[in-house]
């Protein structure tokens, strides 16, 4: 008798903090936390550090600089929601930048074809890695670790020295600025300057919206969550688990292709050291955005805010005078560490 009572109370206490949170899905709960954290951080920076953060362009520069990372992180979130991981995206981005750069400058290629090359490289990695992970049942970390080294090595094989792309059509596209209506600030000369974003930001926003919808409302999207939540159950519910895992990696590859091209468009050069550590940033952004390492929980919108949080905190650290290079790495790692531990505590609690 007493034990059954114990059980009942422990169940209700572990169910949540309050009635509202109790009825919230894990995904939405973590998403809310992320968005709140971001706004608190950004508004706090505006109040304390003023000047820079008050300009709209500061915010849009964060977007401009991180458009590629947003896209890469979306791909990673998908894979992580199915319970996997992909650490090859940074290497793939470098490989794409170098391949496109070589194609455009040394082979007088056109921009459209270079985009196709980027997508093809991304997809090839996605398909190959997805096959090994889903159908041969090899640990995704090992597979994509090899993928990362392969991509980095191949980048050097394609071309050793870093160089800037001079192709005219490409440079024109790279320089394209899209004004944000109604946003702007007065510069030092007293002239009003409209805030702008680069093309990559538009692409990133489209990717976020499209994949947000796919994950939330389509059968495929929900299958990702089911497989990540409990692959055994998903199988019982009639979901093709292997195919779902495979598709997740293919999508991640495709997004690495798009993200790689956006990155290339932003930096306008090819180099073997491009996007170094991008995979870590993408994983960190996904985790901060509320994607659980164990799979089954996560949200593309959260990932978007995860990227913004990550770069905002770096901006804050930098403008606080801690602009030495190593602070960036340490800040990222500390944030990643904190969120990882939070997650592992959450998981441990749930199991009880």
């Amino acid at each position, binding site marked *: 008798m007493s034990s059954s009572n114990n059980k009942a109370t422990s169940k209700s206490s572990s169910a949540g903090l309050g009635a509202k949170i109790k009825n919230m899905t*894990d995904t939405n709960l973590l998403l809310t936390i992320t968005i709140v954290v971001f706004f608190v951080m950004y508004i706090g920076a505006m109040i304390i550090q003023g000047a820079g953060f008050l300009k709209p362009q500061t915010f849009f520069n964060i977007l401009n600089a991180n458009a590629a990372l947003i896209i890469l992180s979306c791909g990673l979130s998908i894979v992580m929601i199915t319970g996997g991981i992909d650490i090859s995206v940074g290497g793939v981005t470098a490989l794409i930048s170098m391949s496109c750069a070589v194609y455009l400058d040394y082979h007088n290629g056109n921009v459209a074809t270079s985009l196709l090359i980027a997508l093809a490289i991304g997809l090839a990695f996605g398909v190959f890695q997805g096959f090994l992970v889903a159908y041969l049942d090899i640990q995704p970390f090992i597979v994509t670790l090899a993928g990362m080294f392969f991509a980095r090595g191949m980048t050097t094989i394609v071309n050793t020295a870093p160089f800037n792309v001079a192709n005219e059509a490409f440079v024109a596209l790279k320089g394209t600025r899209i004004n944000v209506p109604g946003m702007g600030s007065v510069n030092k000369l007293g002239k009003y300057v409209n805030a702008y974003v680069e093309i990559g930001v538009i692409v990133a926003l489209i990717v976020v919206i499209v994949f947000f919808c796919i994950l939330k409302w389509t059968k495929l999207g929900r299958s990702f969550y*089911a497989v990540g939540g409990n692959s055994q159950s998903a199988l*019982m519910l*009639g979901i093709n688990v292997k195919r779902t895992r495979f598709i997740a990696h293919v999508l991640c590859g495709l997004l690495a292709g798009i993200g790689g091209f956006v990155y290339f468009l932003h930096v306008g050069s090819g180099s073997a050291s491009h996007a170094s550590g991008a995979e870590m940033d993408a994983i960190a952004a996904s985790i901060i955005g509320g994607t659980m390492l164990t799979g*089954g929980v996560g949200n593309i919108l959260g990932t978007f805010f995860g990227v913004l949080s990550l770069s905002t905190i770096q901006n804050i650290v930098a403008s606080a005078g801690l602009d030495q290079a190593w602070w960036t790495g340490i800040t990222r790692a500390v944030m990643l560490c904190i969120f990882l531990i939070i997650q592992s505590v959450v998981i441990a609690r749930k199991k009880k």
Partner: protein
Amino acid sequence: MKDESVLEMRGIDKSFPGVHALQGVDFTLRKGEIHALMGENGAGKSTLIKVLTGVYSKDEGKIYLEGNDKAVEIRSPQDAQRLGISTVYQEITLCPNLSVAENMYIGRTENMLLNWKKINSDTDKILKSLDIPAKPTQQLGSCSIAVQQMIAIARAVDMECRVLILDEPTSSLDEQEVAKLFKLMRDLKAKGVGIIFVTHFLDQVYEVCDRITVMRDGKLVGEYAIKDLPRVQLVSKMLGKELDDMADIHGEQTAYDKGADMAPVLEAEGLVSDAGIKPFDFHINKGEVNGFTGLLGSGRSECVRTIFGADRVTGGKVKMNGKPVKISKPIDAMRNGIGYLPEDRKIDGIVGDLSVRDNIILAQQVLKGFFKPFSKAEANKIADEYIKLLSIKTASSDTPIKSLSGGNQQKVILARWLFTHPEYLILDEPTRGIDVGTKIDIQKLVLKLASEGMSVTFISSELDEMLRTCSRLIVMRDRKVVGELSGDDLNQSKVMSTIAGGDK
């Protein structure tokens, strides 16, 4: 058969390498009945269910559905679902991170886009009609286990199942939750669904079921209407002992009763762990063999795990040889001279890839300490000694333990604990899944050890083994101790009636 049957299984036969798991089993399920499938470990009930749900393919026999003359073939769980056979397992096989409605409908259509409005409103209707207290958009994981269980059932029902198999659905539910589940089962019964109910709880069988099919050792014992089979009879049929021939076995163990008046080796008071058992008192004397008995799932393993510190101990006092000791993890128990052979050999016992030798010396090696390894020669000598002593059949002491047969693996684990020379040895189901010869060897060994002064707690699903070896039995039902039998009370009918409890 004559009643409108929804399912008939005829002469089902299934063998695994070394085991004849099902031998010509018949089973009939009628429309709108709740049918209990009962049997102890290894009786074959889970194999029968796996054949029915397409997890295993049967070797022989036929399955008919709803009086059709044509037998059906069930090759996969998907086949079974299409034919209207749905299963709800003890562990929830839904996705806790998805919403209730998603769990109801995912994996059932080929459409890329889903109409969420319709899905949510359909789910709402079903939940209301079955009186399940959940909202369609709620995350499944935030529902209680009972509600999750019901949602799994609702999914099955909505897929137009005619046969619903509930495999131990109540083992993790509390009393009110069980009541809710039973109400749902009765509702479904009224709608004409045939329900197969597998459980270890006798009270529950008598509360909701109409019929009972009893299996033992892969064979059908019989099918009975609930009113024709009193509890004691049911227990005797499950254990395979007629009530009348109980007298003969007693007396065999009188020689080992001497433990009764020796000093207690271990005394425990109000011991309780986080594994869901009620607090219990326990003691064992020097040279005594006692045992925990009760049906599977009654909490007997949890009790000994608590004594050994294998589960998280949440309360109670323990004394070894009169001195209070604290046992919170296995190494504490080992240092106090307790050994424990766990119930699940594969998961908790063997270290599969390691050699027989390493498996034998492991526990003693841990006790000896990190910096005092046995030399290779010593280890070999010890291993060979125990291989000979327990006549373990292995190519050499270098063979990985996982390539040995179950009985020989068990002997290796036994050797491991004997080598620690414990004062008190706990054996949880040491005879499960091993051949008859080895079973007898182990029982003999237990008695020999006791006569040499070791105290032993022995647990077995086979009552006569317990009666042959133990001089005192602690009886458990529904996760609590309900009685203690010794002396003249140690006979089958008394044990069975204590296990069965309730009205006779």
